């Protein structure tokens, strides 16, 4: 052979790393590398400042004239307001414990996706503006001047963090990188820099009460449609009430459950469960959203959108609130709602009317997670369950980040699963419970234009599912989060074909033997139950 060209020469790959410091590597804003910016009208609708049409792909982001002053003052205000932010800015010793724990870093290998470096994007400005040593020594002390390039870098990398908090589990100082991302996003919002997939739901929710802008009559129609399907499957007629004053319990779930499969099947499961136990509950067409995309913009917006839960509970005169399967909704409720919009003294500490169990953990917020509620029903033998109806499924459980790490709900969903299906297999220990890997699309990143990034970020989760798929034949990934239910199906389809996605209460609904029901031939997806093939068409 003469003059064999080496393949690596043929494709001109330059394996040498950029010799520049990380501060000097600009982010990539070519198409597909960034989420679409929000429209001016959604910012204006909620009174956010500096609304304008712009694109991250443009060289000029049309920043307001005094943008540096806005950031400086905004930063200062937050450092004064939140002691945690100041501690997080000061206390990192760069031990590296967090570095390889982020799903985006594991999937992309991009150093700026190491939580420590992501935080450093903000810290470098903190040092420059607010510390003596940073002011004196500049870059030498890890400080840098605030330039438009820094703002662009913030936009790129703080929208490559899903606020899942896996890194903070490993931080010896307990630095919560999710809160750092929240602060950085707040600062970006001061400059009118926001993304469409977050601001559109925020503006919708502000206007109609839910992210999707479903109006009251449509919301009611959707639920009635579910009831028709339930009647066809079970023969049991349901009559849920809407906005009913004097009900004992108000039920609030993410609107994704009303709108998108497979969340819809979970909604059907909730309705069947409530009917079965004779719960005195009502749904609200006003507080028709459990989720809160305000969390991804600013604490003020989060507070505003969250307020409707208590206000509606007060208006209807219910005793307490029951919440559906959602992820970030529970971070807001469990960690912020009580102090943000409470105390809700017009409500009572939640007590299950069926079992008499007092939910001490929810004494302050007055709001109970449905997985806890159902686990308690099962524990007290209040449900008649036939787990064999889920025998065609080999189930694993994805701990949705916020219920797991944000409220410590780890065992209740597993207890429910072990009672409603016969085949349950957990994923490897390092990928579940507190260590759970994010779906890769949380915190408002579940938008299709960054699908490649989402697939990379979701790889660690998918990889663990693949392990149980190959080892145990797992074919169903259950979860308790509406964003998970929306984003895990493509993630599974790409990395682990043959694994479907469902909510916890879809499986509960399948297994639940209701009073007066006909012999079940279909599951909640109206697919034949095992052994009943061909019967349902008649």
């Amino acid at each position, binding site marked *: 052979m003469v003059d*064999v060209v*080496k*393949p*690596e020469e*043929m*494709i001109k*790959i330059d*394996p*040498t*790393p*950029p010799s520049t410091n990380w501060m000097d590597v600009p982010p990539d804003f070519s198409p597909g590398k960034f989420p679409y910016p929000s429209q001016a009208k959604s910012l204006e609708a909620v009174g956010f400042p500096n609304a304008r049409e712009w694109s991250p792909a443009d060289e000029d982001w049309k920043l307001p004239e005094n943008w540096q002053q806005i950031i400086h003052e905004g930063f200062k205000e937050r450092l004064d307001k939140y002691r945690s932010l100041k501690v997080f800015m000061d206390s990192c010793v760069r031990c590296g414990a967090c570095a*390889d724990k982020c799903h985006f*870093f*594991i*999937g*992309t*290998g*991009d*150093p700026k996706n190491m939580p420590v470096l992501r935080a450093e994007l903000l810290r470098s400005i903190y040092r420059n503006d607010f510390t003596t040593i940073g002011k004196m020594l500049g870059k030498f002390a890890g400080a840098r001047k605030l330039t438009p390039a820094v703002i662009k870098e913030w936009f790129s990398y703080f929208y490559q963090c899903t606020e899942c908090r896996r890194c903070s589990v490993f931080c010896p100082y307990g630095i919560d990188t999710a809160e750092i991302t929240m602060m950085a996003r707040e600062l970006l919002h001061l400059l009118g820099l926001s993304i469409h997939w977050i601001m559109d739901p925020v503006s919708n929710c502000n206007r109609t009460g839910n992210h999707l802008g479903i109006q009251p009559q*449509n919301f009611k129609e959707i639920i009635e449609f579910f009831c028709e399907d339930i009647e066809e499957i079970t023969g049991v007629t349901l009559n849920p009430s809407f906005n009913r004053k004097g009900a004992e319990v108000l039920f609030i779930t993410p609107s994704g459950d009303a*709108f998108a499969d497979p969340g819809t099947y979970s909604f059907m499961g909730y309705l069947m469960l409530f009917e079965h136990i004779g719960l005195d509950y009502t749904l609200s067409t006003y507080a028709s959203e459990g989720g809160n995309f305000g969390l991804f913009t600013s604490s003020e917006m989060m507070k505003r959108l969250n307020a409707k839960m208590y206000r509606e509970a007060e208006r209807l005169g219910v005793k307490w609130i029951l919440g559906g399967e959602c992820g970030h909704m529970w971070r807001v409720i469990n960690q912020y709602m009580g102090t943000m919009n409470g105390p809700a003294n017009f409500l009572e500490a939640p007590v299950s009317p069926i079992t008499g169990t007092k939910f001490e953990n929810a004494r302050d917020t007055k709001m109970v997670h449905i997985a806890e509620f159902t686990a308690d029903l099962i524990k007290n033998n209040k449900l008649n369950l036939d787990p064999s109806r889920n025998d065609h499924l080999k189930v694993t459980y994805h701990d949705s980040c916020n219920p797991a790490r944000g409220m410590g709900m780890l065992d209740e969903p597993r207890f429910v699963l072990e009672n409603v299906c016969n085949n349950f297999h957990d994923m*490897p220990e*390092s*990928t579940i419970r507190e260590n759970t890997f994010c779906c890769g699309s949380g915190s408002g990143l579940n938008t*299709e*234009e960054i*699908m*490649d990034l989402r*697939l*990379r970020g979701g*790889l*660690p989760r998918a*990889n*663990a599912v693949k*392990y149980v798929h190959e080892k145990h034949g797992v074919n169903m990934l259950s979860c308790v989060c509406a964003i998970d239910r929306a984003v895990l199906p*493509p993630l599974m*389809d*790409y*990395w682990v074909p043959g694994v479907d996605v469902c909510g916890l209460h879809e499986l509960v609904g399948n297994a639940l033997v209701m009073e007066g029901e006909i012999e079940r031939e279909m599951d909640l997806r109206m697919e034949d139950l095992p052994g009943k093939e061909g019967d349902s068409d008649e």
Partner: protein
Amino acid sequence: MGLITLIEEKRSKIVKEWFKLTIKTYPKEKSDFFKKKKDSMANPVGNTLSKSLEDILKGLTDDVENNEMAKILDPSVRLRAVQEFAPSSAVSYIFFLKNVIRDILKKDLTKEIEKELLIFESKIDRVSLIAFDIYMGCREQIFTYKANHVKERTLKLLEKADLLCEVPEVGAEIIPHNVYLNGGFDDK
């Protein structure tokens, strides 16, 4: 001793070198992590790649059918299809095997072995073509997700605006109201 036996003998060295070259296609700061961590849950990229390369080499020496080879190739190509590589770079790692084998078997290259190696290399070429098919399949899959998002959103908007209705008897699930006015024979 034939080529396959020689490869069998030096299999682990070949895979190691091949992995090294493949990892070099990533910028250094990324490759450091990909090659360091051994736990497959903590480092799916590095582990998928190293396992895949091992499997591909085994598939080649076992002379497996194209279908089987596609299955073996899938994990690594699927990975590289979402890693921001140009298409040529994404599948380039297959070709690296040629040089790795030539380098490692340098001293053993008799005329006979050289002949065998040329045939073996043409098999590597065939593998690269299969890899390209998989790569395109992956990209199309991703575009489909994006397209589906847009389709679903459009449908929901039309539904919301009450422009759609169900017409089960004509077999179409959802079509605009006015299409089948008067059985579809009247424009008005």
